[in-house]
């Protein structure tokens, strides 16, 4: 008997069922339960009348700075001002979707490739934003590598107010509707990386970015 | 209204005056109080030591002794928690006696609950001017939700309730825990005493004798012979 069979039969025996494999009927019941995709109780902060205000409030709490831009075209200018204000170098590694913007006009050099360990600033998009917790949902793909959001010291993300949803449940519903399946990496980011492992004292910038900045498009 | 008094084994053995204070409070409110003589213990020490069968036989004994009462009152949140939460809820869950134990639970009250919620007492007999800090015993607080009742009664007596830090933190008694893991238990009592002293009150009150003995024992060992440790019943019955 394999370890798998032994574990499964132990579980089944403990629950009063014979054999080492769930029956088709049992699996069908589990799939039916999954297919219900039942949502848990939604808290008040998830049903706010002004999701944008909620999103920004939560960003403030986790230390994510934010800026509302009128269009994609003004992103390079907004990035330039952010880099300037934070004393950062004018070089970015960016997701492909942003490589074609007019960076040159703002004196910014953009590398259209996945980030490496020594990149200073990474620019990414986002699949959607979640108001409840001030969170961005990012999905990996050949054009949207995860490393760009992770390795650089500064992470700038572009999000769309049209794609601001109330809750994580809404984000998952959108993801299923548009993509069907989860990509390899699906990750929710709320602010810069941090730790409180020494004397429970909060320090920003553990292994990932020190700074997180969101540019909100209409 | 026939009210059975469950004295509790600790009050019987160590502080009968708490029993008499309770008796006075009930009788002066017009209750006909009966004190079944064969009562001993609710069984909690056995129950919490893993002696389930012993706990069950004591539960049946309690049930028989108080069957005829309209209400049962105990000056202890801990014993009341045992009766109200664990008899029907655990020991006899699914057993033929479950319904009877559920009835017992429904008519059983911790003293402050009974005075406040059932008798709706507006003026207790005792007078006590001065600051009292109140220790919330765990079972009463978390199993029964006893929190404001004893404080309201103390205020009726004229006392000022001066809250200590962490008034809801366990004092370390825990029944046999206090002996089995005495060092940890002592440290918890010590922490409680620090908070009592910091409150500035010279009287600490509570609703469970086990906790009160633990707190008093630690205070005395620390050389504090001044701080008075009392059951709230003593204060509001005018026996402080």
């Amino acid at each position, binding site marked *: 008997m394999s370890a798998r069979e032994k574990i499964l039969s132990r579980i089944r025996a403990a629950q009063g069922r014979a054999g080492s494999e769930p029956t088709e009927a049992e699996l069908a019941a589990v799939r039916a339960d999954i297919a219900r995709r039942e949502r848990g109780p939604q808290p008040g902060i998830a049903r706010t009348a002004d999701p944008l205000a909620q999103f920004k409030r939560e960003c403030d709490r986790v230390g994510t700075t934010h800026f509302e831009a009128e269009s994609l075209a003004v992103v390079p200018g907004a990035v330039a001002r952010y880099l300037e204000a934070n004393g950062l170098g004018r070089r970015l590694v960016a997701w492909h979707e942003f490589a074609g913007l007019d960076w040159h006009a703002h004196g910014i050099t953009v590398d259209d490739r996945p980030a490496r360990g020594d990149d200073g600033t990474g620019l990414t998009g986002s699949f959607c934003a979640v108001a409840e917790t001030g969170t961005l949902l990012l999905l990996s793909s050949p054009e949207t590598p995860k490393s760009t959001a992770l390795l650089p010291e500064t992470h700038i993300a572009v999000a769309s107010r049209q794609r601001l949803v109330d809750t994580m449940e809404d984000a998952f519903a959108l993801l299923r509707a548009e993509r069907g399946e989860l990509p390899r990496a699906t990750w929710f980011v709320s602010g810069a990386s941090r730790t409180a492992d020494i004397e429970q004292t909060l320090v920003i910038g553990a292994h990932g970015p020190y700074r997180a900045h969101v540019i909100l498009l209409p | 209204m026939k009210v059975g008094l469950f004295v509790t084994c600790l009050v019987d053995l160590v502080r009968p005056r708490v029993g008499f204070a309770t008796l006075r409070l009930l009788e002066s409110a017009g209750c006909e109080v009966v004190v079944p003589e064969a009562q001993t213990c609710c069984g909690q020490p056995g129950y919490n030591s893993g002696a389930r069968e012993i706990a069950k036989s004591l539960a049946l004994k309690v049930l028989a002794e108080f069957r005829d009462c309209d209400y049962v009152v105990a000056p202890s949140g801990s014993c009341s928690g045992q009766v109200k939460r664990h008899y029907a809820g655990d020991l006899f869950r699914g057993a033929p006696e479950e319904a009877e134990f559920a009835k017992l639970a429904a008519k059983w009250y911790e003293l402050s609950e009974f005075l406040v919620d059932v008798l709706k007492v507006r003026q207790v007999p005792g007078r006590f001017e001065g600051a009292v800090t109140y220790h919330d015993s765990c079972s009463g607080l978390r199993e029964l939700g006893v929190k404001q009742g004893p404080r309201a009664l103390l205020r009726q007596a004229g006392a000022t309730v001066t809250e200590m830090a962490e008034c809801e933190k366990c004092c370390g008694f825990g029944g046999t825990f206090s002996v089995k893991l*005495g060092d940890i238990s002592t440290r918890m009592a010590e922490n409680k005493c620090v908070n009592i002293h910091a409150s500035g009150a010279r009287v600490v009150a509570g609703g469970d004798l086990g906790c009160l003995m633990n707190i008093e024992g630690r205070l005395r060992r620390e050389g504090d012979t001044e701080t008075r440790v009392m059951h709230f019943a003593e204060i509001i019955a005018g026996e402080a």
Partner: protein
Amino acid sequence: MQVQSMFFKRTSSMKLDDPVLQRNMKHAKGKFVDLRAKAIVEIDNWEDIRTHAAALRDRTLANLDAYLVEFERNATRRGAQVHWAETAEAACDILVEIARANGVKKVTKSKSMVSEEVNLNERMEAAGIRIIETDLGEYILQLANEPPSHIVAPAVHKSKEEVADLFTVAHGRSRTVEIPELTLEARLALRDHFLTADMGISGANFVIAETGTTLTVTNEGNADMVTTVPKIHCVITGIEKVIPTLEDFATLIRLLPRSAIGQTIANYLTLTTGVKGPGDSDGPEQMHIVLVDAGRTRFVGSDMQEMLRCIRCGACMNHCPVYQNIGGHAYGWVYPGPMGSVLTPVYVGIENAGDLPNASTFCGECQVVCPVKIPLPDLMRKLRERQFDNALRPWGERMAIRAWSFAVQRPKLYAALAAVGSRVAAWMGGKDRVIHWMPGADGWTRGRDMPAPEGKTFRELYRSRPSAKGGGAAISPSLGRGQGEGQP
């Protein structure tokens, strides 16, 4: 991790006398407890969410085999390989074999309590594979060669000075006690390892049946590094971690960071599903998921199954007055505090951890704060019942219960013994009315006096009372006489 739980009593007493630990624990207690209290009041339906979460965990556990198989099917479909390990040794064997087969020299690991259970680091090192802890707390402990003392904040027992001493030796830089600088040192030391490791090992906070996803919750981002950069990603997790859907994760994540550290949300919620796709620049080429039993099936279907609801937030220990005073190491195995007092005896044998179920006053705080409503005191009591039924407690203790039991069931005998006891103890109390030493109760009288009884029992005094009924004489004129509201 080697089991030291049999020394609980002795170790806990030592910890009470360790001034550095005591200071560190006091400091931590304030943070955890206060931050959680503030965080949960922001959720207007916290209790409803707890109830829903407990129910969803129960529902999954009731069909655990089918959810696991469904998870396996979906994970496999996405290119992951699912392995099953009955024991700690088997789990290590699987991971060592994967590493060997792929010529792995260096492994980065994000925090996994299951890996502590199975002694993974030791086994990897013995096989000649370097394994590097990347959670800051775990990294500190790996340098110190110590086990974690807390499941969320593993190095909570360490002061910054102690960390500084360790880092000075490990990093060869001048000593600093500034926490941001210490954190930066660890970042720099670990960054290179993240980029050059051949294999990453992570735990999983949950695995999702619907999608075949494994999931980590971190603030540091180390799990993201470990699951993104190396060519091989291995997940080691317990079989009870499976949840049905993404919606269920959304529910549980409202509870987890708030309960753990009072945080609205953790910075990185990382869902990994299968291997990298064609054209992906990052992500692993191989993904292995090791589902570990190692004692978990002992809970399944038992009267203690509720324990498997646990989502490892640590709130029970943070609020436990016993844990707060002795720290995690005294518990002698991976899981400290109330959850450990239930898990450890079942996983390592109750005969090796007999004091743990007894290391509770049943104050109930753990149950109140548990986000999935595990009745921890009830579960500890069930373990005490097993000890009692199998004569696993010390002889003296068992005899005391037997003697007490004999007496309390015989009211006349009990009354007589109580009358004698009350008199003797009153006499022992002397004029101070406190007893300084009591035979058989040394645990009490070592650190406390015993208030002496009054000298006569209530029942004696009551019997000799002039009027044992009615009580007209005692009526206070000022007493309000609201009548009861009839029968309850």
